[in-house]
């Protein structure tokens, strides 16, 4: 894996992550088949893939939010700033999640609590920071203390201003239902940035929004993350967004990373037939023809060993069914999990 060869230690380092579950008929189903992924400090990384590729599952695992059971981590490691996340306990997560590592969710409207005002939600966030439980005293003390209230209010207004929300003073008193999807997403971005996190995980933050709003949100996210010098892992199915936003890209298919490299390199010279297929399928604004990928995503139950893409691949040979090709370095940061990456021209 290329990232391990990089000079600095990765901020987030996922290696060989394997996740599966046991189906009701007692058959074992593997959903993530050894995911390798690394994010370095201050870097913007896109994780691209179609539905069912495991990108959301990977994010859940990194955030320690996998529903176990039914799911189970069957192998691999996840390290964040050197901490083994798979072994982390509740206290360790309390320090990390929501502080060092924050999430900008996919559905802005359902990600804010509808019964509290924007101000109250910030207040909780500010007083809970890094504590598992406050107890009744810890809950009421900041609420009754005028100085704390004023300080939190000022911090909230500052945060709302920083994401270009108009009239932050008025916004504090409003309920999420009174805000549009775009505004909710700005509020959530402000919340995610509040603790000066080292890593921001953005899970398709614009998919639920209109195109013009999505563009605004992405631009805002990019500016803020760069400003704070944080790293961002941006999950998306939209290749265009990945192209415009990220420094480095990981392409996932059927539960594993099939290609990674600098975004410009991967888009200009893809080295995995799946990446090529995806790029050819995106409708262009020019009149360039588009072409889909034949077949459908294989069922994880029937996948067996070998390259998961071989059923749909024009370049597949007998060897592709024999074993799962590892992600192997081609040049610099560029790596592809295709046996024939060196010999075929895509």
């Amino acid at each position: 894996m290329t990232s391990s060869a990089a000079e600095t230690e990765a901020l987030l380092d996922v290696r060989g992550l394997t996740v599966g579950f046991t189906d009701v008929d007692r058959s074992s189903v593997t959903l993530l088949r050894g995911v390798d992924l690394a994010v370095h400090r201050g870097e913007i990384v896109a994780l691209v893939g179609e539905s069912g590729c495991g990108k959301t599952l990977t994010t859940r695992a990194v955030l320690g939010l996998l529903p176990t059971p039914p799911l189970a981590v069957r192998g691999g490691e996840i390290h964040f700033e050197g901490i083994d996340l798979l072994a982390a306990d509740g206290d360790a997560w309390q320090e990390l999640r929501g502080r060092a590592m924050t999430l900008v969710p996919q559905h802005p409207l359902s990600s804010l609590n509808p019964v509290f005002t924007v101000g109250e939600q910030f207040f909780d966030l500010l007083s809970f920071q890094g504590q598992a439980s406050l107890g009744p005293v810890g809950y009421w003390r900041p609420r009754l203390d005028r100085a704390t209230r004023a300080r939190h209010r000022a911090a909230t207004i500052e945060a709302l201003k920083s994401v270009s929300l108009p009239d932050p003073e008025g916004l504090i008193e409003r309920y999420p239902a009174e805000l549009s999807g775009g505004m909710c997403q700005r509020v959530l971005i402000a919340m995610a940035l509040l603790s000066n996190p080292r890593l921001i995980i953005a899970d398709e933050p614009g998919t639920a929004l209109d195109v013009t709003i999505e563009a605004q949100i992405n631009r805002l996210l990019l500016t803020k993350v760069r400003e704070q010098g944080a790293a961002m892992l941006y999950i998306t199915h939209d290749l265009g967004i990945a192209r415009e936003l990220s420094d480095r890209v990981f392409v996932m298919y059927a539960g594993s990373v099939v290609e990674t490299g600098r975004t410009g390199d991967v888009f200009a010279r893809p080295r995995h037939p799946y990446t090529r297929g995806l790029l050819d399928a995106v409708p262009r604004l020019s009149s360039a023809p588009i072409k889909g990928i034949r077949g459908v995503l294989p069922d994880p139950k029937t996948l067996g060993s070998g390259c998961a893409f071989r059923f749909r691949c024009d370049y597949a040979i007998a060897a592709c069914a024999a074993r799962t090709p590892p992600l192997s370095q081609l040049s610099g940061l560029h790596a592809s999990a295709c046996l024939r990456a060196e010999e075929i021209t895509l």
Partner: protein
Amino acid sequence: MTSIAPSAPLDDEPHSVAVGLGTRAWASLRNSPLTVIGFLVCLGLVVMAAFAPWIAPFPEDAGAVVKFHQRLQPPSAEHWFGTDLVGRDVLSRIVMGSRISLATAVAVIVAAALIGVPLGVIAAYRGGWTGASIMRINEVFLAIPSLVFVLVVTSLMRPSLPVTIFAIALAWWTWYARLAYGEVLSLKEEQFVDAARTSGASDLRIAFGEILPNLTSVLIVKTTLDLGYVILLGASLGFLGLGPQPPAPEWGTMVAEGREQLPDAWWLTTFPGLAVFAAVVGFNLFGDGLNDILGGRD
């Protein structure tokens, strides 16, 4: 006009080898012993009713037989559940009585579903005044507790099995109407309804040909759960003397008759009571299990 590369020949494999209903049913039975118990009790009850004359040791005891020489005998090897005031075998009467309970329950539910489901479907699908009127009438029926309602109806007519069935069905259709109403209200927002409309399908075809089949799962579950409740209600009526009249071996009637012999001849009330209990619990457990199997999509 832009050009699009010709579509590749199609060789779509099946999207998934999704676990079939049979496998899912089996898995959920295995994980839930209560469902299995419920199923076995229900199966036992149905078999008992179907083959009652062959199962009952003294099938003739279901009727107006008098065997004074063996009256009020406690449970023994010959009479497992003892004998009653006139010497009839209690076990035989319970076995024969299962036919009455089950027949009542099935008849009531079929009638209630046949009245309630179409009314609920129409009310939800048409909406407007039609829907409002149906649902208001429904609420009037619903406002009266079913036992009270049935008591009033049966007291107006001479108590008998058909009257019991008629009375309970008249109280029970409201639940089916409400269930269908709620389900159709959400189903009619599905795009396949618009698709049927643009296909030129009539309202009747859309409501009953397209939407109704989507109600089967909830109806099966509801029906199973209800079989238990209706058996209980039927027994309550029998107990109050408003059900099938003696000598019919109705379980509730038997409990009522035996009540006077308490505490000495405890078997006269205990065993018919246990039969009612087993039936209610059995259908309930089985219905809950079915709900998990049929309703558990995804």
